């Protein structure tokens, strides 16, 4: 599957980010495996360590299997100081998992992220592509139940 995806791209190192992004979306467990890294590095003729570096730099990427909905809680300082509640704790309790874990039905993965660029509207979190701002305990519960409906 990765082979077809790669062949759409020119063999240019600059395209690494685009390739990683598409690879992660397309894959069923939404992560980039060691074999994927090897294949991508080989395709672009760059060291595997370079792909690992890029992958581990961005919280958007993961090298471990993830659920359908990836919840990322901002852990940077502006969100921290604007929080009345502990966003992470609430989600952990609601879903019964700890940070960096996935629910047993593979629906939710809970992660930290660095700044999402909405510091004026903190605390914030992201679920897949969507960003949620001004989080409160009730709001978090409501958002999660919305996703549960889709399950």
């Amino acid at each position, binding site marked *: 599957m990765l082979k077809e995806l790669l062949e759409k791209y020119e063999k240019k190192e600059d395209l690494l980010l685009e390739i990683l992004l598409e690879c992660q979306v397309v894959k069923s467990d939404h992560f980039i495996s060691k074999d994927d*890294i090897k294949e991508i590095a080989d395709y672009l003729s760059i*060291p*595997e360590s370079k792909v*690992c*570096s890029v992958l*581990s*730099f*961005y919280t958007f990427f993961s090298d471990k299997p993830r659920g359908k909905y990836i919840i990322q809680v901002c852990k940077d300082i502006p969100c921290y100081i604007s929080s009345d509640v502990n966003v992470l704790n609430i989600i952990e309790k609601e879903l019964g998992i700890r940070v960096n874990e996935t629910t047993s039905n593979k629906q939710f993965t809970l992660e930290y992220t*660095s700044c999402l660029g909405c510091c004026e509207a903190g605390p914030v979190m992201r679920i897949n592509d969507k960003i949620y701002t001004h989080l409160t305990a009730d709001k978090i519960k409501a958002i999660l139940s919305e996703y549960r409906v889709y399950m």
Partner: protein
Amino acid sequence: MNMVNLTINNVKVSVKEDTSILQAAKQYSMNIPTLCYYEDLNIKSDCRVCVVEIDGKKGLTSACSTPVREGMVVNTNSPRVLNARKTIVELILSNHDTNCTTCVKNMKCELQSLARNLGIDENRFPSVFEKCDIDDNNPAIVRNPNLCIKCGRCVDVCNNVQGTSVLAILGRGHETRVSAVFDEDLNDDFCTFCGQCASVCPVGAITEKDDTDLVWHALTDPKKHVIVQVAPAVRVSLGEEVNQAIGTIVTGKMVTAMKILGFDQVFDTDFTADLTIIEEGNELIQRVTNGGILPMMTSCCPGWISYAEQRYPDILDHISSCKSPQQMFGALAKSYYPQKAGLDPKDVFVVSVMPCTAKKYEAKREEMSVDENSPDIDVVLTTRELGKMIKQMGINFENLKETPFDSPFGITTGAAAIFGATGGVMEAAIRTVYEVVNKKPLESLDFKELRGLEGIKEAEVNLGGSMVKVAVAHTLSMAKVLCDQVREGTSPYAFIEIMTCPGGCIGGGGQPYGTTNKVRQERIDSTYRLDASMTLRKSHENPEVIALYKDFLKEPLGELSHHLLHTHYSDRKNK
């Protein structure tokens, strides 16, 4: 080149344009402290220790990465600079295992010296240090992330000098770490154990695996007959470990010191370097005359062998089947030597002192065993480890008398002496191959075009009436250039020498810390001085080597030679 005038700490200075503030200050005897900066490597400016204040500029500027400008007024030690610098180091220390007295780099650590020079008597920040696992699951290199300060020197060497890209900076922000690819432990699938990372690490985060205890143990075991061999590159660098000037030739004192340490016999790897030339030279002649696979590539360097096995398994048959001098010595030490000395091979304990960390791995390769049970070389020490043992013993090195190496592996030639420098093996081989093929003495023994620190060097030699091209490469990124040619079938050479480390073994991963190109050049100069001073300068004229063939091996590439002195390589890429 245009000169730029500026003021540093009230001193008017004039330096060439494009000079960094750091270099400009240094030229005028003002040293700005650094941590991530390393001569000859890329400028990273990520530690921020070298910050200085420039008049009219709001923030502080890193001196390593900022070029001088006309009229610039720089203050390298203003209260603001000193405070920032101190804060930076205190923050690094707050996330560091600061048990300095029990650290392998105690008194050799750049962070420790920096903290002392900055007068850090106490740390204003609480420790946030959390212990992580140490990676020591290989015979050569230990990676201790607890000591890592993320300066990036090792990553730079691994990526840009060696082109091996084993180490990388992973993660981000507080979670940034230096790690091997996929966060795996270092292993022989992807690491060559060249040790260049250890060589540039400012702290104790990457070091060789310390085997000195094993040697002390053997030395005090009355049942063991402990012999040691010393590589050519050690005698021009060991001095640095014992407070001698860079490049001091310490051969005689080194032998005396090892006698005091308790070794029963002290032998010279130069002897098996001469032997390597006889075997490898004859292999080359055979390949050239019988239409064998060319170019032939040297096999002395275990880092290069690993690199070829991992990344160029398709060209392994170009590599000479000769074992390295270390392993030729090992094979003889467990066969010929006990026979000659009237000893049981089981009682002979063989130690090597090498400029190299990859030699520790080479000695543990399963094919390096004559009896197929125990390794031919029991322990490999680096130059640094020998220095450590000399200090542990309390030897006053400077005042030692000189002692010659012991027989039967003691007489050597200039050809063997130059094995330690890039181009040396090639030059030594040409001296012998030329005379054997052309059956006349070589007019000039010095192949100056093969010497020095240039990445790839070439020469032409007349062999039996036709001109043959040879090439020499050092560092694996340069080796790659020649390997790609061989792979594509476009290599114009008959013989190629490859050494993993910059400068060859004199710049090896086990050599004294602070090895820069300047230091490498001094060690190289001493190496060729040593060669020029010797009576015998060609391997095939070594009387002990001649005697070894007469008494024991019979002929080069013969049956016994094949069994003891030659080896094979394996594909590690497709295993």
